[in-house]
């Protein structure tokens, strides 16, 4: 560490961090020759039509070549079925009805007997074949449109034997991209605060709850993880130097630097889309206000402030507006700021405690946590304050909503199961599932962006 650097490395800068991202997935993906639908420029199905019904899909067990590797095969098809289920677009047809088993059902377009699948009202079929040689794994996966009798997606994955689950997640992302025009979230991750006794550390977990990994080991209080827009860095708040300061982890290098350590509060970091800047709440001038910082920690200017608390900034996807919480009216409420013009506008007017705004990736909603009937619930509201909708109904205290990057789901913390845990829900609240099942309690989730290929 050279003293002359503008960015100081704090003691213990090497963190156990995200080797999971480095050894992540070295995969050669090739598109089997097919003219259309490999890139997915247009949606194959219209999921927005009013009478959309879940699509019947069949996912038989995988065919194997060379070595059976039963456990690997079972893990991969299990992951595939779970991902397809989570996507919310499909209804899986009972395997008992399938015309054949893993070995006899065709794998390529030539081999598949589409008429037999049509007979049991299947509209889509996924067939996969895997081969393990030494420590390496090759997976061929194909998606068929049964009604029209043709293959619409084909992929070959090559990697190590342990990459099977990652290959499946990549394939399902491609399935959704092909069918809906929007990539799936099956390779994304969720960061959260893991509380065990007095110690609070940042952990990261796959979108399906697998592979929880700690990325801080400071033995202190760490809060408010915030993925950078490219997913390569994580800002967070830590007391490891005594008072709350904002640090940034480089997830690929495993290093940490101090971003903001002004006197008083340095909390609630929020990366600005499309710029090397962050919003954060500082109290350096005596009152907790929201400031604009460069990504080396210099203060550009104050964005929002009053006699009261301003906290919890959340940027619009174009980086031109900011949702935030202000206590200026006498109770915590949500406001929207036009960053260039400076106009502020309150958007929540019902309820005495509205906090944790989260602007959707599509820019069309702000999710937040509102106190209603004695409990905190997740709501959606338009950025102009209209069309308020309630999302959670499951009981407990529901806070800190964060959007999946495809804008279809929210993760949030809930005490409906007893201790606080991270849950995931669709936007109308009809399907929720618990994400974290660890000891201790989990709070303050933040959903990663899509990770670009490295």
């Amino acid at each position, binding site marked *: 560490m050279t003293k002359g650097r503008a960015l100081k490395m*704090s003691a213990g800068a090497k963190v156990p961090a995200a080797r999971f991202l480095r050894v992540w997935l070295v995969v050669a993906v090739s598109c089997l020759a097919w003219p259309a639908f490999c890139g997915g420029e247009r949606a194959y199905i219209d999921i927005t039509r009013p009478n959309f019904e879940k699509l019947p899909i069949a996912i038989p067990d995988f065919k194997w070549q060379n070595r059976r590797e039963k456990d690997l095969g079972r893990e991969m098809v299990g992951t595939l079925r779970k991902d397809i289920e989570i996507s919310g677009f499909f209804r899986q047809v009972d395997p008992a009805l399938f015309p054949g088993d893993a070995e006899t059902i065709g794998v390529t377009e030539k081999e598949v007997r589409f008429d037999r699948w049509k007979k049991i009202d299947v509209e889509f079929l996924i067939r996969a074949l895997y081969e393990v040689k030494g420590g390496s794994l090759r997976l061929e996966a194909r998606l068929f449109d049964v009604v029209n009798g043709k293959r619409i997606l084909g992929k070959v994955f090559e990697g190590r034997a342990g990459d099977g689950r990652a290959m499946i997640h990549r394939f399902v992302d491609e399935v959704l991209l092909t069918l809906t025009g929007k990539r799936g979230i099956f390779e994304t991750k969720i960061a959260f605060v893991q509380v065990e006794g007095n110690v609070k550390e940042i952990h990261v977990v796959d979108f399906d709850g697998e592979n929880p990994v700690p990325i801080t080991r400071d033995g202190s*209080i760490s809060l408010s993880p915030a993925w950078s827009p490219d997913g390569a860095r994580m800002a967070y708040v830590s*007391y490891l130097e005594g008072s709350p300061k904002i640090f940034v982890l480089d997830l690929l290098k495993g290093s940490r630097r101090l971003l903001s*350590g002004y*006197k008083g509060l340095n909390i609630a970091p929020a990366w600005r889309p499309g710029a090397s800047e962050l919003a954060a709440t500082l*109290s350096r001038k005596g009152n907790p206000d929201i400031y604009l910082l460069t990504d080396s920690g210099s203060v550009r200017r104050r964005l929002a402030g009053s006699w009261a*608390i301003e906290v919890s900034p959340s940027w619009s996807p174009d980086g031109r507006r900011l949702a935030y919480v202000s206590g200026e009216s006498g109770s915590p409420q949500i406001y929207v700021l036009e960053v260039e013009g400076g106009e502020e506008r309150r958007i929540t007017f019902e309820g005495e405690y509205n*906090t944790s705004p989260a602007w959707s990736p599509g820019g069309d909603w702000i999710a937040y946590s509102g106190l209603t009937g004695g409990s905190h619930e997740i709501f959606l509201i338009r950025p102009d304050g209209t069309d308020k909708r309630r999302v959670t109904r499951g009981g407990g205290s529901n806070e800190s909503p964060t959007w999946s990057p495809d804008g279809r789901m929210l993760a949030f913390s809930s005490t409906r199961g007893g201790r606080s845990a991270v849950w995931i829900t669709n936007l109308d609240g009809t399907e929720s599932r618990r994400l974290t099942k660890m000891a201790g309690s989990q709070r303050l989730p933040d959903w990663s962006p899509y990770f670009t290929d490295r």
Partner: protein
Amino acid sequence: MGRKTMKRGYTELGGVFFILMCLAILSACAKKQVPIQPELNLGTGIRESGAPAAPPAGLSDWNDPRWKELGIYSEAELNEFLERAQSFENEDLFFDYDAFVLNEDNRMVLDRKVDFLRRYPAVSVTVEGHCDERGTNEYNLALGEQRANSAWQYLVNSGIDPDRLSMISYGEERPIAFGHDDASWAVNRRAHFVLHY
């Protein structure tokens, strides 16, 4: 207000100082007694209690020059100081929900602290702001800061040198009562004072 802005590039010595401050705060918190509020019925929550704050090791001899710096010249004076220091740290300020204004009780408690701080000009204080578990972590960090700030402001307005005072908010992150009920919540909505000498 006289508060200095933290320079971002502090030296490693400064870093060590902060770690020691943090440890000092932590050890003080672990050893403090139950706050004195006889009218609260705290039967339901789990309460943290411990031995009274002991003087730093090696300084219980009243002849030690450190005590002379504090104006202590006899065993009797040392005992008086330790007793008053313990009272100082054990008397928290309590706040209404979502509020950071000082009420009459708070001002009386602060007046007693001002007396102590005038009597022993060499001691310094960290004012901690805390919240109950309800509401958002981030908002509560800010609210804790405002509670600490209210107390800080009162002390400074009473003539205490701001250089002797520092502030820190823990929001809802360091509760001392762990029940999920009004009694526990009321106790957690506090400003707590840690002495350094």
